[in-house]
């Protein structure tokens, strides 16, 4: 119930039309532009979990990093509690980083192999000017306890842990400074299936106990349904559909969402898949299709899809979709 009341509050994070274009050097030396993000906008309310889904290369991870300003966007605005992050002075931005953290996909690469676990977890406090060593030690023990690890493992090195344990340590580091926002970039996709549920449950527990809002990046539609309040579907650097989880899963509007949902394996082999299937690969982000980015693979495309770009519009209350045929 507490979460319910919180979700009605003002947005914690508001992303307005952010774009990120990378310059890439081709083999023959000419520069090409990679259109990683082509104007995405969404809001994340206090206490809410927003899923960001899409296939590999659609710009999910770029979006995750851009939101935290780990990558500078080419254009757009990022408002965190009504402050424009992109306009902040570097020192202000650094102190604001306490409130926004990230959990990475690969737990093995996200912890420094040369540092002991306690040193890794003391780092956040050290950076933000906590000076009392015994207090910090106490906090580190508390963090390990929160993520389900025992404090006598604190003097070990990362290579002595399993992937699941390492991800817990990564989560401990992210929650060290009591953040309000955590960007989780595929936090379970590198883990064994048996470990995934544990880590997801840990994230859910932390959400309740610490009032954290998540931006949850994933390509696993089943986990997103279980974990997220709302879901944004991305395709080639754009959001094509944005809605509450249940309507999105039950009544997908965009053909791409339909296709993604059709790809979820069913437990019942007798269930005939009558839903949409698509063929082919994601088009090259250096050579964007004209018109609707999805038209090259869309089974229901029409003439206008090849010429003009559909905008994200509210098809029903709270259900946004970017498709001419489903408006």
């Amino acid at each position, binding site marked *: 119930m507490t979460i319910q009341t919180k979700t009605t509050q003002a947005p914690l994070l508001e992303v307005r039309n952010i774009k990120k274009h990378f310059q890439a050097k081709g083999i023959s030396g000419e520069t090409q532009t990679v259109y990683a993000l082509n104007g995405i906008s969404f809001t994340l309310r206090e206490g809410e979990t927003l899923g960001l889904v899409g296939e590999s290369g659609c710009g999910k991870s770029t979006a995750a*990093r851009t939101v*935290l300003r*780990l990558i500078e966007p080419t254009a757009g605005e990022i408002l965190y509690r009504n402050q424009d992050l992109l306009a902040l002075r570097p020192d202000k*931005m*650094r*102190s604001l*980083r*306490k409130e*926004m*953290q*990230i959990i*990475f*996909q*690969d737990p093995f*690469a*996200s*912890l*420094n*192999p*040369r*540092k002991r676990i306690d040193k890794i977890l003391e*780092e*956040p406090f050290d*950076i*933000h000017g906590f000076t009392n060593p015994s207090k910090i030690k106490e906090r580190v023990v508390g963090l390990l306890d929160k993520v389900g690890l025992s404090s006598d493992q604190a003097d070990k*090195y990362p*290579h*002595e842990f399993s992937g699941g344990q390492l991800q817990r340590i*990564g989560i401990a*580091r992210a929650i060290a*400074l009591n953040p309000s926002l955590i960007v989780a970039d595929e936090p379970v996709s590198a883990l064994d299936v048996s470990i995934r549920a544990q880590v997801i449950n840990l994230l859910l527990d932390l959400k309740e106990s610490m009032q954290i809002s998540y931006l949850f990046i994933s390509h696993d539609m089943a986990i997103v349904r279980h974990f997220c309040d709302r879901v944004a579907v991305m395709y080639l650097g754009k959001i094509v559909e944005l809605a509450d989880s249940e309507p999105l899963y039950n009544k997908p509007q965009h053909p791409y969402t339909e296709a993604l949902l059709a790809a979820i394996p069913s437990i019942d082999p007798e269930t005939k898949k009558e839903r949409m299937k698509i063929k082919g690969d994601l088009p090259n982000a250096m050579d964007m299709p004209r018109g609707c980015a999805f038209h090259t693979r869309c089974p229901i495309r029409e003439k206008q899809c090849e010429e003009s770009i559909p905008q994200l519009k509210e098809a029903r209350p709270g259900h946004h979709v970017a498709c001419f045929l489903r408006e």
Partner: protein
Amino acid sequence: MNYLSKFSAVFLTIVASAAVFAPWVAPYSYETQDTLNTLAAPGFDHWMGTDRLGRDLFSRLIYGARVSLFIGVVTTLLALLIGTVYGALSGYVGGRTDSVMMRFVDVVFALPDMLMIILITVMMGRGVMGMFIALTLVSWVTMARLVRGEVLRIKEYTYIEAAHALGAGDLRILLREILPNILGLMIVTLTFRIPVAILAESTLSFIGLGIAPPFSSWGTLANEGWKAIKFYPHLILFPSIAIFLTILSFNFLGEGLRDRLDPRKRTQFG
């Protein structure tokens, strides 16, 4: 650590302490002449024999270790320091800065080492200082390249991004996240580069551009000994053995340290 590198560490410690405490360890001074016993073969009075002027070879070898080791260790340390700062900066900043800084390294690297060393020592005059500067100037580029490569590799790891996300500054990231990862490589490189510098010093002294007599270094001793190799082989044998064993020991030590400094390998030994 394996026995070979442990043994090497002990050997190098002995050589180094003998060099440091030379006046107490050496039975004679490096310039004391035993004029009745010139060109003596190894024996009880003179363990390694004497040279043409009757100077005790063992004593001269110990005093020579001072010069050889000092030049070897200090030039390498200095080159490492310069190379690390330069390389780390270049790799970390990246982009155009990196290109410009590395082109300069390429230029220095392209100059033939020995030619540069000889030119500089000729310019500076014979002596420790000239050799010191010459050897440092030619060897820091190797370090810079090595460190830059490692920094380029390591800065792409997610834990660097995590540090950024926590609000860590660039200096903190370089010192706390990247440096610990290249420290092992640096120490190992140090042990592999010291012999190169010792050898370079010996070579220079051997061709007559190094330390001026009556001071001795292993290179000058070998140079003097070489002239009488046919009749008094001990004069070149002992300096050569000293150089050979020291260089070999540094190499073994380097290998041992490389394994030892990696926490992933460390725990296997408890």
